[in-house]
């Protein structure tokens, strides 16, 4: 414990971060106006201090290009890209899981044939990334990136291993809850989403300023997968379901081939 503290002399304690989180949340409850997205200006996440706009976002009606979205297809994505446990000489270490769900618009309609990308740490909580200095083992059989296209009903499905939590330097003894990073496209440019999926029952969520930047607990809950036994496969992998709702598509999505 003492070595951890001496290596983090400039960092503040979790108790200070947690009290800031609690103060912001109680302010949110008092104000009574519902929020569904993270705060951009969220001081407990120290790296956001100089990286959030000071002005409000300016509301604008989307134009033609913003009502359309990039197209991806089978030439872009190999079906094997959705299995993060293959492509290496051996099996990755860790708890093998299936993560699947539907991508839908705010109108509930499936987002079909669209790109979903994920990246993640390995079972030990280490990213295969040169900037990750966490002294946990790299796994020669796990890179941690995957891609797939949603099917005709909006379903995506990945085979991977459960990532571990990992420490970071927001404050002393800061640990990110285990998560998968997701990048999702919709039928409109305006629906572009990059987010993180968390696992049910993780005690680190309450301590984590990135999760807590979503000040509404129901909104935060939208990022937590549920264990789904119907996705669990016999003697192979446990299953997690996580559905993704993209921002409301007020405009009628244009099908490929409809445009001039």
């Amino acid at each position: 414990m003492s070595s951890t503290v001496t290596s983090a002399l400039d960092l503040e304690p979790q108790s200070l971060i947690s009290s800031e989180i609690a103060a912001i949340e109680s302010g949110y409850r008092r104000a009574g106006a519902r929020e569904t997205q993270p705060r951009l200006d969220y001081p407990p996440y120290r790296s956001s201090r100089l990286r959030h706009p000071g002005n409000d976002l300016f509301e604008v009606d989307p134009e033609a290009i913003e009502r359309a979205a990039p197209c991806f297809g089978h030439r872009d994505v190999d079906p094997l890209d959705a299995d993060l446990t293959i492509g290496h000489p051996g099996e990755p270490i860790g708890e093998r899981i299936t993560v699947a769900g539907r991508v839908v618009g705010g109108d509930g309609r499936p987002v079909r044939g669209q790109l979903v990308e994920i990246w993640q740490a390995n079972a030990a909580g280490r990213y295969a990334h040169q900037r990750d200095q966490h002294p946990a083992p790299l796994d020669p059989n796990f890179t941690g990136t995957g891609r797939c296209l949603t099917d005709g009903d909006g379903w995506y499905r990945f085979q991977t291993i459960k990532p571990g939590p990992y420490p970071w330097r927001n404050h002393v003894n800061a640990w990110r809850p285990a998560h998968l990073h997701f990048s999702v496209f919709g039928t409109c440019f305006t629906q572009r989403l990059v987010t993180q999926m968390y696992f049910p029952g993780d005690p680190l969520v309450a301590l984590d300023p990135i999760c807590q930047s979503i000040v509404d607990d129901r909104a935060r809950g939208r990022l937590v997968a549920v264990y789904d036994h119907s996705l669990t496969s016999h003697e192979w992998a446990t299953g997690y379901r996580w559905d993704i709702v993209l921002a409301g598509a007020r405009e009628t999505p244009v099908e490929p081939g409809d445009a001039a």
Partner: protein
Amino acid sequence: MSLIAAPGQTVGPFFHLGLPYDGDRDLVPPGSPGSVALRGHVFDGAGDPVQDALVEIWQARPDGTIPRSPGSLRRDGWTFTGFGRASTGRDGQYAFSTLVPGPAEPGRPAFFAVTVFARGLLNRLFTRAYVPGDAGALAADPLLAALSAERRQTLIAARDERGLLFDIHLQGAHETVFLRYPSGDPA
């Protein structure tokens, strides 16, 4: 029916693992006929370059039509898909090789639809990089017309001998105008 959208989260420091890919920033081969550079720096509120940002663009063709072709992830060198992705380097600079878009709506000025991601940025930001030159169309644009002269300038790219320059300031005196779209969602 109107469902509430999933919240965003930051791309974090390790997005290079999952998002960049070979050819991501070259919508057309650099130096090919008609190609231009669209480039700029991403700056934080202290004016320092952001080394771990990611910029995406989505655009019309020079004739204003909207691409419907897949192939952005595995470019064939011939198909213009209209989508590109560029991470910033150690100097905080991003750069695309692309074509200058035409107006996707008649009478409106042409722009690149831009999305910005970064470590420390809790949700992606949308903006527009307008193509400079058509003074009449720029002056008549409803978004630009609603902004002060100073803020309007943050959305209009500059032209130089290599193409277009578009710096992105996340915060501060030169802060870029970032956009939200009406969606029915609160906040």
